């Protein structure tokens, strides 16, 4: 599932400034959240990691990645139970988003 700006496009109704503002916020926050998430995992603090996944999940939803969102949902639930089953898949999703945003022409 590839990220798209369709939600932001629909929401902004052709307001490029708003769309840019949102992209900048995600680009600014997502790498920090992702680093923090890995730090939480390295401490085996899965509750904390799940809280960060919850935050990242919202960013995934803005990019209309429905299947990825479902996986992030499962990952959050599993982490809260102390299971790291979906770590790899979640990493792939976030890396995909970061690459997409960094290469975005906007």
């Amino acid at each position: 599932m590839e990220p798209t700006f369709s939600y932001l496009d629909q929401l902004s109704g052709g307001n490029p400034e708003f769309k840019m503002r949102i992209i900048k916020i995600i680009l600014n926050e997502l790498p920090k959240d992702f680093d923090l998430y890995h730090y939480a995992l390295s401490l085996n603090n899965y509750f904390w990691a799940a809280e960060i996944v919850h935050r990242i999940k919202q960013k995934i939803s803005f990019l209309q990645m429905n299947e990825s969102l479902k996986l992030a949902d499962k990952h959050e639930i599993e982490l809260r139970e102390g299971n790291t089953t979906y770590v790899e898949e979640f990493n792939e999703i976030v890396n995909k988003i970061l690459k997409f945003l960094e290469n975005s022409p906007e």
Partner: protein
Amino acid sequence: MDCIVLDDESVSREIVRFLCEKEPDIKLIGSFSSPIEAFKLLNQQEVDLIFLDIHMPDFSGFEFIQTLKKPPLIIITSSDVEQATEVFDYESIIDFLKKPINPDKFQKAINKARKILEDKEEKKEKPIARTSRPSANPARHLYINIDKKLIKLEVQKISFVEAQGDYVSVQGEAIDYRVHTTLTNMAQKLPEEIFFRVHRSYLINLLKIIDIQDNTILIDKSVIPISRSKRVPLMQKLNLI
């Protein structure tokens, strides 16, 4: 319509701001990432509507509502659909918007809020009388026994009392005494309207609060811890003032 948004997620706050800006009668007067910040504004002025996230660190949206004595209209914005049923427990919640917020659904929710406020205006309902509070006739003075001498203290000048073993330390404006008593005893002597036990070792004067961070209160130059269990009751108490 004066509104605020409370959401720990900045993109969500920006989206609500953007959608509100499209509505000429909506004035977003505050955008907050933490409930504590929102409380500060709500203690100073009333708002008509709150866009409220449920899942926030430390303090959930539902806990936030429970602390409000007179909650305004509330529109929940959340990605946790499974919590949607809980909204029926709160009269003030008028709608639930799933994230990412659909602009049409946002519009419908806003129209619902408009209608409720218009109906209220038409009926010219008298404001619901507030629950009567305990008699506001607090003792103005307190005598403490220091070296067999009774010292008169103005309670308003006491900033906080700290438990120190078999003693308590009474601190305030030109007040610095160590008294042989318990914090529970002090709490019984001081007016409950303005004094509140925020921690098993601290009793504070609510009127002396300078600032509240997540787990601490600044009074004068002292940082006082807040027990996790005392946060909601403290916020309720602050809202009463």
